[in-house]
C-alpha cells in the first residue's frame, strides 16, 4: 500500500484514517478474522433487510461511460514478446475448462479432463488449466479424469443456470456436488430476488450455500450480470456476494446474451480490491462466457494487473470460464514458440 499523506490544515482534528467513509461503516468488519466468511462478518450491515439495503445503496455510484472508457483504454495495452509469453501461459493456467450442455456424456467429460491436464499434447511445457467445470452429476467422472493432476473440478449448482428452485433443492444440489468431490462450486444467485430488492434473501441463500460447501469446496458466486443490467447493480451484487462469504465472484453463466465484458469485469475487480483493502479478505474474480480469443484474454489480464494488482495474477484468484478460449491460447502459444501461425488442426477438439 501507499504511504498516506495526511491532509493539511483543512483536516478536522482527530479525524479518520484512509477510508474515512468506509472505515466508519465497516468498523467491525475490519477486525474480523479472514477465514470465517460463513458467519456474517458484518452483523450491523446484514442485521436486517433495511440495513443491508441502506449499505448496498450507499456504495459509490458507477458512471457507465467512464467505466467503459477506462476498460477500453486498458484494452489498448500492447502485450508483446516476453510479456505475451508470460500472459499466455498465465491465461491457460487460469482457464476453467467448461462444458455445460444437456448433451454432456461421460466420454465428453473425460476428453475435457484429459485436455485440462495436458492442453497441448505436442508440448509438455504448456501448463494445465485451473479446473474443469461441469454439471453436478458429471463430477465423479471429471474427478477421475483429472485425478492426480492438480486440476480442480468445479461444479455448477443451485439450479444452474436459472436458479429458479427452492432453497432446499439448491442446497441438495450443492451437497451432492461436494459429496462427489467437487473442489469448487459455482452457484447462481437468485436474480429475481435481487431485482425485487430482497437483498437479505440473496444474502442468506449465498451464506447457506457457503455453509453447504463446508471447508473443502471454494464457492464461486455467479451474478448473471447481463440480467442485473446496470453497473450499480453489479457493484451491489459484488459486495453482497463478498459479504455473504463468496471465495470468487463470477460474472455470468454463459447462457444469456451478455456475459463477461471488460467493463463488468473491471467493476468487479474494483470491488474485490476495495473489499480486501477494507476487510483484509481477498476474493477471486471469474469472468465467464464470451471470451473466445487470446487477445481478449490478455486484455482481461491487463485489467487485473492494473486494477486489482499483481496479487490477483494467479489461478487461485482469477479464472476464465471458457471452452473455446483454450484452443486459441494454445495456437497463439505455438505461434510464439515457432514463429509460424498455427491452425485448428494442431490443437485438439473435444
Amino acid at each position: 500500500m501507499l504511504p498516506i499523506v495526511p491532509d493539511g490544515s483543512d483536516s478536522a482534528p482527530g479525524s479518520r484514517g484512509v477510508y474515512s467513509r468506509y472505515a466508519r461503516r465497516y468498523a467491525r468488519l475490519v477486525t474480523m478474522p479472514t477465514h470465517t466468511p460463513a458467519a456474517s462478518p458484518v452483523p450491523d450491515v446484514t442485521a436486517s433487510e433495511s440495513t443491508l439495503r441502506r449499505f448496498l445503496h450507499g456504495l459509490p455510484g458507477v458512471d457507465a461511460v467512464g467505466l467503459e472508457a477506462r476498460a477500453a483504454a486498458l484494452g489498448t495495452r500492447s502485450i508483446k514478446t516476453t510479456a505475451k509469453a508470460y500472459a499466455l501461459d498465465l491465461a491457460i493456467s487460469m482457464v476453467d475448462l467448461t462444458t455445460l450442455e444437456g448433451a454432456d456424456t461421460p466420454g465428453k467429460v473425460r476428453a475435457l479432463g484429459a485436455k485440462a491436464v495436458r492442453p497441448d499434447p505436442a508440448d509438455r511445457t504448456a501448463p494445465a488449466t485451473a479446473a474443469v467445470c461441469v454439471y453436478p452429476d458429471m463430477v465423479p467422472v471429471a474427478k477421475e479424469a483429472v485425478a492426480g493432476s492438480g486440476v480442480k473440478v468445479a461444479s455448477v449448482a443451485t439450479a444452474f443456470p436459472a436458479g429458479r428452485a427452492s432453497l432446499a433443492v439448491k442446497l441438495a444440489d450443492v451437497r451432492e456436488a461436494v459429496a462427489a468431490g467437487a473442489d469448487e462450486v459455482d452457484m447462481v444467485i437468485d436474480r429475481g430476488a435481487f431485482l425485487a430488492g430482497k437483498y437479505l434473501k440473496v444474502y442468506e441463500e449465498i451464506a447457506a450455500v457457503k455453509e453447504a460447501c463446508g471447508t473443502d469446496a471454494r464457492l464461486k458466486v455467479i451474478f448473471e450480470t447481463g440480467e442485473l443490467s446496470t453497473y450499480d447493480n453489479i457493484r451491489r451484487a459484488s459486495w453482497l456476494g463478498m459479504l455473504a462469504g463468496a471465495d470468487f465472484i463470477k460474472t455470468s453463466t454463459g447462457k444469456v446474451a451478455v456475459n463477461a465484458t471488460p467493463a463488468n469485469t473491471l467493476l468487479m475487480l474494483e470491488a474485490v480490491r476495495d473489499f480486501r483493502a477494507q476487510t483484509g479478505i481477498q476474493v477471486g474474480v471469474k469472468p465467464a462466457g464470451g471470451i473466445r480469443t487470446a487477445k481478449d484474454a490478455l486484455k482481461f489480464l491487463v485489467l487485473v494487473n492494473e486494477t486489482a494488482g499483481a496479487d490477483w495474477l494467479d489461478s487461485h484468484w482469477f479464472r476464465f470460464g471458457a471452452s473455446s478460449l483454450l484452443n486459441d491460447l494454445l495456437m497463439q502459444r505455438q505461434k510464439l514458440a515457432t514463429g509460424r501461425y498455427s491452425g485448428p488442426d494442431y490443437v485438439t477438439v473435444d
Partner: protein
Amino acid sequence: MASAFEYAPAPESRAVVDIAPSYGLFIDGEFTEAADGKVFKTVSPSSEEVLSEVAEATEADVDRAVAAARKAFETWSALPGAERAKYLFRIARIVQERSRELAVLETLDNGKPIKETRDADLPLVAAHFFYYAGWADKLEHAGFGPAPRPLGVAGQVIPWNFPLLMLAWKIAPALATGNTVVLKPAETTPLSALFFADICRQAGLPKGVVNIVTGDGRTGAALVAHPGVDKVAFTGSTAVGKEIARTLAGTRKKLTLELGGKGANIVFDDAPIDQAVEGIVSGIFFNQGQVCCAGSRLLVQESIHDELLDRLKRRLTTLRLGDPLDKNTDIGAINSAEQLARITALADQGEAEGAERWSAPCELPSAGYWFAPTLFTGVTQAHTIARDEIFGPVLSVLTFRTPDEAVAKANNTPYGLSAGIWTEKGSRILAVANKLRAGVIWSNTFNKFDPTSPFGGYKESGFGREGGRHGLEAYLDV
C-alpha cells in the same frame, strides 16, 4: 504466488515517418529558405536528439507569406463553398490516410505518448477538417446573415502542446469560410505543420491559401503586427496574448485569443468515485498536464478527501512514464527544457509555501525532459500553485465543504477556461454548472473534445470560440 506482469517494450516504428534534415518556409505553395538563410534546430524532447533544421522566418519572409495569402484570397474566397469543401474533405482524408506517420512525427517532435497522438490528436484533426468541410457550403444557414463574407488573410499563431490539432482548429474554419492563412507553428514543434504543408500540396490546394512560417516569438510578433493581416488568432500564454491585444489595439484587425487556464475539477461526495479518479488523472496528466484546459485544481469535498486521495495515489502508481513511442506509455516527456524549468520552479515554490508534495514512484529517463506526476495536498487559495498556471503534470488539491464554497473557490481565479463537476446527482450538475465562469464545463468526464463543440474562455483565458457553429464567427465579417 503472484509474479509481476511486466509489459515488454512495444515501440511504434519510426520507419513510417521520413524526416528531412532541413525544412524551408512554405510560402505560395513552395518550400523556400528564409531571406537571411537562418535556421534553428528542433529536437525530440524525450531524447534531445536533433530531428531537423528549420528555416527561421524574418519580417521579409512574413511579408512574402502575407502577400501570397492576399493574392490567393481573391480566387479562394470567390470559389463556391462546395468547391472549398472538396479541398477540406480531401485534406481530412489524407490526414486519416497518413495518420500513423503524423502520429509518430508528432510524438517525436512534441514528446507526448503515441497512445495520445494516435487515439486523440490525429482522429480529432481529421474530424475537425471533416466538420468544417461540411459548413463550407452552408454558411448562409449558420446564423450570421444571408451571405456572410470572409475577413481576408488570417495570421495564426499556435502553441506546442497540440501542434497539429491546434493547426486544424485554426486552419479548418478559416478555409471553410473563405479566408487564406499564414500560420506560425511553435518554435519547438514546427514539423507537423510542415508535413501539413505537404498535405496541402497533395490535396492540390491552390497556392498561397495556406502558408506556414516557422520561427520563434519574433516571427509571431511580425506576423500579428503585419498590416496586411485582417484577422489574428492566437493560442498560447496569457502574457503573450495580452501583448498581442496591445499590438492590435486601434487597428482594424479582428482578434480571438485562447489563453491559459487553471481549471477546477470539483468532486462531490456522491461522485462515482472510481470514474472520478480516472477523470482527475486524465484532467491533469493527459499530455503531461500541458493543456490549457487542464483540471489543475482538484476541489474535493472534505468528507471524502482522504479516501479519494488514497485511490488517486494508488492509481498514479500505475501510470507508465517513459519512451513516448512505446504504445504502453501513459506519460511522455515535457516539451522543452524551458518548460521543465518552469514546472520545476513552480513545484518547488509549492513545497516552499508549505503544501505537501507527493510524486508517484517512477524512474525518469536520463536523457530528455521529464517530470514525474506530482500532486500537492494541503493547498489553499493563497498558494501560488493554486493560482498560477503550471502547464505540467502537477495537481493542486484543495477542499471545500458546501456546493457554494466549491463554486466560489472554482471561480476565484483570473482564468476561466474549463471546469469539471463530479456527482451522481443530475440536478447538482446543472445548478453548479450555471454558476461556474468557465468556457467549457465537463460533468463526470474531463478533457473530452469534439469539433462540434465550441471551446474558449472567460476572463484572462481569452475570448472568441473555436469549434462548432460558433467557431465560424471568428472568421466571418459579422
